[in-house]
C-alpha cells in the first residue's frame, strides 16, 4: 500500500538523516539535568552552611520527604501529633518517588510501581484502602482493586534477536536445556514462596524483617546471587540474563553484586492477592509512585519546608535542634524540637548527626533516569508496545511508557522514562563519571540506546530531561541484610528515630512506607 511505502521511505530517510547527522555531530536536544540532590550532596560533604539566623519551634521534625518521611507524617497525624515540620531537600517531596509533568504527560523520576502488597504488608494495604486503590475484599479476603490503577496489559516486552516478544524471559532461540533450567529455577522460587523456616516465619517476607531467621535460609545472604546460581547448576545464559536484569531493576546492581538472599527475595517474596487480578499484577500511574507521594504529601503541605537542606542535628538534655538551609533565601533556620524522625538516607544521616555511631559504609547504586518526550509512540515488529519495554542487548533497563495507563485511544505523543542503573564499575567511580556528564552527553547515550531498538526514533524526540541519582538506592551486597549492620541502623539515637528504606537493605515502596510508619510510632512512644 502506498501510504505504508511512503511511511517506510520516511523512516528510512529519517534514519539516514539521523546517521548523517550522527556522523557529523550529535543532534542537540532540548531539556535539562534536573534535581538538586547532586549539588546539595556536594555541599553537605563540604559543610559550608551559613549560621542559623532564625529560630523556630516544632513539636517534631521529619528530615526528608521521601516515602518513609511522608509515611511518618501520616502516622503522626493519625496519632494526634499534628505539630510537626517536614523538611525536604528537593523542591517537592517524594524522594525516589518524585515525579514531573509536561504538556504531554506526567511521568516518574524514579519509583514507578508497587506490586500487589503481601498480606503481611498491613500498613501498605491500609493505605491502599484509604486511597481507593482497593475497595474492600472478596469472600476469600482478597482485596478488590480499582482496575484503572492496575497496570494495563500488555505489561512487558523484550527486544531480542531483532523482535519484540511478550514478557521479559527470553523465548527466542532458547534450547531445551535453557527451558529445563527456567522450569527448575522458577520451581525453586515457587517453593521458597510458600516455604516457612524452622521458626515458622515465611522464608521471604515484605517487610523483610518479618522473614524467617532460619540459618539455612540466611546463609544465602553470605554469597552473591551469581555464585549461588552457579552452585545450583543454573548456567543457562538467558536465565542468568533474566535474573541479572531483575536484580538490576530492583537493586541497581546485577547478580555478581547482590546477595543470593536478596536475589531470591525478588522472585520468592511476592504473595500479594487480588480478587480481580493475577498475582504478578502491579499498580501504577502515569507519574509512577509520584501519585502516592502526592497523595501522602497533600495533608501536610503547610507543614512542609521544601528546598530545605538539613545539615546539622544536635541534642542536649532532651532537647533537639535541627539546622536547615532554606535554599531559596540562602539562610539557615534552627528548629527546636522534642524529637526527630530522620527519614533521609543513612549516608546523609552520618553527615547531619556528627555523633551517630557506626560506620558509613553502606553501598549505594547510582542511577540515571531520563524522561524522553516523543511526538510518536514507539512501535517495532512483534509484540506491540507495552508498559515496560526492555532490550536484551542494552546496558540500560529500557523504558516505561508514561501514557500506558491512559484509557484514551491512540495518543500520538508520549513520555517514556528511560532507566539506567550505573553498575559497570564500582559505585564511587560511576557516580563521579555520571555527575561529570553534561546534558548533551546523556542525551547522546539515551538517544543512541533507543535508536538501537527503534531506528529513526531520534527524529521523534522532542525533549530529554535527565535526573542523576548519585545514591539511588541501597545495594544489598552479601552480608548487608543479615550481617548486623541494619540492626544498628534501626536503633534510635537519643530522641532521633530512623526511617528509610536503607534500613531494610532493599529499596521498595513497602519497606520505606513501613519504616516511616514504625518510626513515627517509636518516636511518639519515646517522647510521649
Amino acid at each position, binding site marked *: *500500500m*502506498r*501510504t505504508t511505502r511512503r511511511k517506510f521511505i520516511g523512516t528510512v530517510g529519517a534514519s539516514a538523516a539521523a546517521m548523517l547527522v550522527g556522523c557529523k555531530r550529535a543532534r542537540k536536544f532540548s531539556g535539562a539535568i534536573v534535581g538538586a540532590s547532586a549539588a546539595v550532596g556536594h555541599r553537605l560533604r563540604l559543610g559550608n552552611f551559613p549560621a542559623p539566623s532564625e529560630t523556630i519551634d516544632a513539636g517534631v521534625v521529619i528530615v526528608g520527604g521521601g516515602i518513609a518521611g511522608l509515611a511518618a507524617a501520616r502516622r503522626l497525624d493519625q496519632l494526634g501529633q499534628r505539630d510537626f515540620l517536614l523538611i525536604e531537600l528537593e523542591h517537592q517531596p517524594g524522594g525516589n518517588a518524585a515525579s514531573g509533568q509536561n504538556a504531554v504527560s506526567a511521568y516518574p523520576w524514579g519509583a514507578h510501581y508497587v506490586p500487589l502488597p503481601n498480606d503481611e504488608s498491613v500498613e501498605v494495604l491500609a493505605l491502599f484502602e484509604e486511597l481507593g486503590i482497593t475497595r474492600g475484599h472478596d469472600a476469600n479476603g482478597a482485596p478488590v482493586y480499582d*482496575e*484503572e490503577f*492496575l*497496570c*494495563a*496489559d*500488555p*505489561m512487558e516486552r523484550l527486544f531480542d534477536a531483532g523482535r519484540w516478544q511478550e514478557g521479559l524471559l527470553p523465548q527466542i532461540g532458547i534450547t531445551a536445556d535453557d527451558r529445563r533450567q527456567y522450569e527448575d529455577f522458577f520451581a525453586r522460587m515457587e517453593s521458597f514462596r510458600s516455604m516457612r523456616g524452622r521458626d515458622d516465619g515465611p522464608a521471604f517476607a515484605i517487610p523483610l524483617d518479618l522473614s524467617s531467621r532460619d540459618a539455612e535460609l540466611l546463609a544465602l545472604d553470605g554469597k552473591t546471587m551469581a555464585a549461588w546460581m552457579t552452585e545450583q547448576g543454573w548456567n543457562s545464559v538467558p536465565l542468568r540474563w533474566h535474573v541479572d536484569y531483575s536484580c538490576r531493576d530492583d537493586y541497581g546492581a546485577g547478580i555478581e553484586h547482590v546477595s543470593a538472599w536478596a536475589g531470591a527475595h525478588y522472585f520468592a517474596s511476592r504473595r500479594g492477592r487480588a480478587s*480481580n*487480578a*493475577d498475582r504478578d*499484577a502491579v499498580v501504577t500511574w502515569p507519574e509512577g509512585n509520584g501519585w502516592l507521594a502526592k497523595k501522602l504529601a497533600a495533608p501536610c503541605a503547610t507543614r512542609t519546608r521544601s528546598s530545605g537542606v538539613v545539615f546539622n542535628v544536635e541534642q542536649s538534655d532532651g532537647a533537639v535542634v535541627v539546622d536547615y538551609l532554606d535554599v531559596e533565601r540562602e539562610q539557615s533556620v534552627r528548629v527546636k524540637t522534642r524529637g526527630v524522625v530522620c527519614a533521609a538516607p543513612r549516608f546523609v544521616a552520618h553527615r547531619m548527626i556528627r555523633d551517630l555511631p557506626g560506620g558509613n559504609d553502606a553501598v549505594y547504586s547510582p542511577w540515571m533516569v531520563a524522561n524522553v518526550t516523543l511526538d510518536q509512540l514507539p512501535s517495532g515488529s512483534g509484540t*506491540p508496545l507495552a508498559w515496560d519495554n526492555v532490550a536484551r542487548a542494552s546496558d540500560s533497563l529500557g523504558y516505561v511508557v508514561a501514557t500506558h495507563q491512559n*484509557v*484514551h*485511544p*491512540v495518543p*500520538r505523543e508520549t513520555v517514556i522514562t528511560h532507566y539506567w542503573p550505573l553498575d559497570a564499575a564500582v559505585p564511587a567511580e560511576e557516580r563521579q563519571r555520571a555527575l561529570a556528564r553534561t546534558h548533551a552527553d546523556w542525551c547522546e547515550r539515551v538517544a543512541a540506546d533507543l535508536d538501537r531498538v527503534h531506528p529513526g526514533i531520534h527524529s521523534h524526540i522532542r525533549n530529554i530531561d535527565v535526573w542523576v541519582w548519585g545514591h539511588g538506592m541501597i545495594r544489598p551486597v552479601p552480608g548487608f541484610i543479615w550481617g548486623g549492620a541494619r540492626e544498628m541502623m534501626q536503633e534510635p539515637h537519643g530522641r532521633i528515630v530512623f526511617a528509610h528504606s536503607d534500613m531494610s537493605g532493599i529499596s521498595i515502596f513497602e519497606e520505606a512506607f513501613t519504616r516511616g510508619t514504625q518510626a513515627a510510632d517509636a518516636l511518639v512512644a519515646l517522647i510521649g
Partner: protein
Amino acid sequence: MNDRGIRLLLLASVFTIATCGLIYELIASTVASYLLGDSVTQFSTIIGAYLFAMGIGSWLSRYVEKDLLRVFIQVEFLIALFGGSASATLFVLFAHVSSFRVVLYAIVLVIGTLVGLEIPLLLRILEGRLQFKDLISKVFTFDYIGALLASLLFPLVLVPYCGLARSGFLFGILNGAVGLVALWALRGQVRGARALQIQGIVVLALLGAGFAYSERIITWSEASAYNEEVIFAKSTPYQRITITRGGDDLRLYLNNNLQFSSRDEYRYHEALVHPGLARLPNARRVLVLGGGDGLAVREILRYPRIESITLVDLDPSMTRLFSTQEMLTRLNAGALTAPRVHVVNGDAFTWLKDNREVFDFIVADFPDPSNFSIGKLYTTAFYQRARHALAPGGAMVIQCTSPFVARQSFWCIDETLRACGFVTEPYHTLVPSFGEWGFILASLHPLTEEWNFPGGLRFIDAKSVADLSHFPPDMGRVPVQVNRLNNQALVRYFDAEWARYSQQ
C-alpha cells in the same frame, strides 16, 4: 513558421482538443457513477448535460468578434484548468458539500461550454487558410479520430494505470500545452502574448502540482484492495475512513474493517437497537457510544418518546461526514442533525468518567476489539463506568463481534458484563455482509418480555425477536476469562480467533 506549418499545428490541436474534450466527459461521468452510483443514469445525464453545454458554447462563439486567436488560447487555458482539476475537485468536495449534484452539474456545464467554444473558434481561425470543404472535412476527421483515441485510452490505460484524478490533470496539462504551443507559433499575431504566456504557465504549474499531489487525494492502490470503487478515503488522527460503492451498495470501512454495507445495515442496526429499546416503555434518554455513522441513532429516533440522544464518537471527521454528505445523510435519515440528537466528539471512556447524567438506554457500538486500545472499551473498568451512567431499570446493548467466528470473544464479553453485576441476554442474527453477528443486552434487573416495536422496521418484528436468543451448539457458551484492563483477554481471544478464521 510558414502557413503550412501553422495549418498542421492547428489541426494537431483539433486532435488534442477532441481527445481531451471526450476524456473530461468520461471522467465526469465515471466520477459521478463512482460517487453516486447508478452508472446508467450518471453516464446518460452527464453526457447529455455536457453535449448541451457544448451547444451553448458553440452558440456563444458568435459573440466573439475580434482577437479570435487570443480568445481561443484563453479558452484552452480555462479548459485545462477546469477540465484537468475536475475529478480531483469532485472527490474532495464530495465529502464536504451537502448538494453534491449541483456542484457536479455546474462543473460539467462550465467544461462543456468551454469545449463547445473550441471548434467553432478554430474553424474561424482556419477559415482563410483552407478551402471550406477541406476545412470541414479535416477538422471533423481529426475530431473523430481524437474521440476514438480517447475512448480507447480511457478504460484501457488511464483508469487502471493513472486513476481518475491523475488522468484529469494529465489531460489538462496537454490542453494547456496546446494553448501554449499555439501561442508560441502565432505570437506575432496575438495581442498581449506575454501576459497570456504567464497565464498559461501558471495554469500548467497548478496542474503539475495537482498531478504530483493527486495520489494523496485518492489512493488508487488502496482502491484495488477493495472489490468496490473507493469513493472517499481519509486518514484522521484516529483511523482511516474509507467509503466504497459497488452498484447501489455503499460500504464504510474503518481501518479496512467493514462497518456496514448499505444493503443490509438495517438488519444490524435494527437488531442492535430494538430488542432492547422496544422493551423500555419509559425510556427517555439514550446514550450512543461510538456509532458515528448515525445509523443506530436513526433507529432510536423511531421512538417518539425518546427525548434526547447523546452520541459520543471519537472522530469529528466521522460525525461531520455523516452529518453533511448527502448520500450518507440519506442513509441515516439525517439522524445526526435531528433536534433531539446531541453529538459529542470525545473518547467514550474518558467521557464516561466525567459524565454525571444517567440514561435509560446505552448503545455501545464500537469497532471490534482488534487492538489493545479498542479492547479497553470492552473491559470491566469500562462497563463499571457505563453502569454508573445507567438509570435504574435501564439497559445497555453492546455489539459483540461474531459468535460464530469469534466464539470465545463473544462469550468473553458476556462473562465480563456478568462480572460487573449485569444480567445479560446474548443474542445474534445474520447480517449477510458480516455473517452471523452477536449482541448482548445488559441490565441490572431482568427486562420484561414485552416488546413494543415502532413502525417502519424491515427486519425485527415480534416473531423474529424471540428467535434471536437461541444459540445453536456451534455458537454456544464456552468457558472464558473476564476481560480486564490488566489482562486484555478479549483482544487475545479475538486475535487468535480471527487469525484462525482467515487462514481457512
